[in-house]
């Protein structure tokens, strides 16, 4: 007889769940969106029902249970500190030790008569299946990558097709990871605005505050576009931009916009000066390239060795471009005063 109180979960996501998902996709409160670890009953499981293991990030938990309508099974939720399966596996929190701990803490041996644990395949970087077997007697079976494939997997005697074992990075996947990057806007825009404001303020013969404020806001526009290209642009156009390196893909996108900007720089209220045009060209390109490089952290296929390599090459180049741009801006200003 199973001695613990069992919490039941449904397979329906309500408005609260859906709104919560949108919030965390935007990066709001995503470090504090979790469910309690432990054993949950979905449907009417008995001692022969399968056990699915997952992480305690609520987005993960909801993404899993919504695919399981009509099923009766157990869900074993690990304490991954509110982090999703794949990231937690990389960190080790969706790991061997936590899985063993949770099996014993929930007295799982008494809840089920079989000895199989179905883990998401992307939990594998953190879990040594053979060690779990040794410590608990439970055999780890790696299920499909996507929760949506679980019903078919269970139906097929726990056999996964080759397709179920491959991770993708489709357009939908890429779009889903864009919103969280908007958080950079809240840091980048005020900093840029402050810079333009101070730069535009410093002029021989005084200034008009309203004019300077307005000009500084308009100056931001090409930079917002550069940022958008390095986030939204790179995500959507990823397979179509040449080069394997993200910094290079970003530089290419950045240069295209920088060229367009250079033809129309007066629209954005920059002074008529080749020094200013060149400075903007350099800094705009560097910004798009930087955010494109940053996007490597959101992909499903970039290796850390590769990211390290391209970071080592590209960051100094971006830094030099920005530095050169700043030098040109200073020279421009100095010339204004010298006459």
């Amino acid at each position: 007889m199973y001695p613990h109180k069992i919490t039941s979960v449904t397979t329906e996501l309500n408005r609260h769940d859906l709104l919560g998902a949108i919030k965390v996709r935007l990066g709001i409160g995503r470090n504090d969106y979790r469910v309690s670890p432990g054993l949950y009953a979905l449907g009417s499981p008995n001692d022969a029902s399968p056990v699915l293991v997952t992480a305690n990030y609520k987005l993960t938990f909801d993404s899993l249970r919504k695919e399981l309508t009509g099923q009766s099974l157990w869900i074993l939720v690990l304490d991954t500190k509110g982090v999703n399966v794949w990231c937690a596996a990389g960190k080790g929190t969706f790991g061997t030790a936590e899985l063993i701990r949770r099996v014993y803490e929930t007295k799982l041996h008494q809840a089920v008569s079989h000895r199989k644990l179905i883990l998401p395949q992307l939990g594998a970087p953190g879990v040594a299946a053979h060690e779990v077997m040794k410590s608990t007697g439970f055999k780890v079976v790696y299920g499909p990558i996507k929760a949506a494939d679980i019903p078919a997997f269970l139906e097929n005697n726990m056999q996964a097709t080759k397709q179920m074992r491959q991770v993708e990075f489709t357009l939908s996947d890429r779009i889903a990871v864009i919103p969280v990057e908007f958080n950079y806007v809240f840091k980048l825009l005020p900093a840029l605005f402050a810079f333009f404001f101070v730069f535009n303020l410093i002029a021989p013969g005084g200034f008009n505050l309203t004019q300077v404020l307005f000009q500084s806001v308009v100056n931001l526009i090409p930079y917002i576009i550069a940022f958008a290209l390095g986030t939204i642009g790179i995500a959507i156009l990823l397979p179509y931009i040449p080069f394997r390196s993200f910094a290079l893909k970003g530089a290419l996108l950045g240069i295209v916009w920088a060229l367009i900007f250079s033809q129309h720089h007066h629209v954005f209220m920059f002074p008529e000066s080749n020094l200013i045009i060149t400075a903007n060209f350099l800094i705009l390109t560097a910004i798009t390239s930087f955010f494109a490089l940053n996007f490597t952290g959101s992909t499903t296929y970039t290796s850390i060795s590769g990211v390290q390599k391209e970071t080592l090459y590209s960051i100094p180049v971006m830094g030099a471009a920005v530095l050169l741009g700043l030098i040109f801006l200073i020279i421009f200003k100095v010339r204004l005063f010298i006459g």
Partner: protein
Amino acid sequence: MGLVYLKNVVTLEMDSDKCTGCKTCTFVCPHNVFSIDNKKAHISKKEACMECGACAKNCPTSAIQVQSGVG
């Protein structure tokens, strides 16, 4: 998936002598890097490796090595 990353960078290595042919690496790899040939696994798509570490973590004989970091 047509997306590929940089060439000749990944730290993935395998000692075939230690391989027992359990096929676990083929079950856990999300990019189909391994294939089974003559009852042993070998690295057939090294370029597709993202160094997630799932293979090395689950190889019961430690035949596979990779520097996976924190993903």
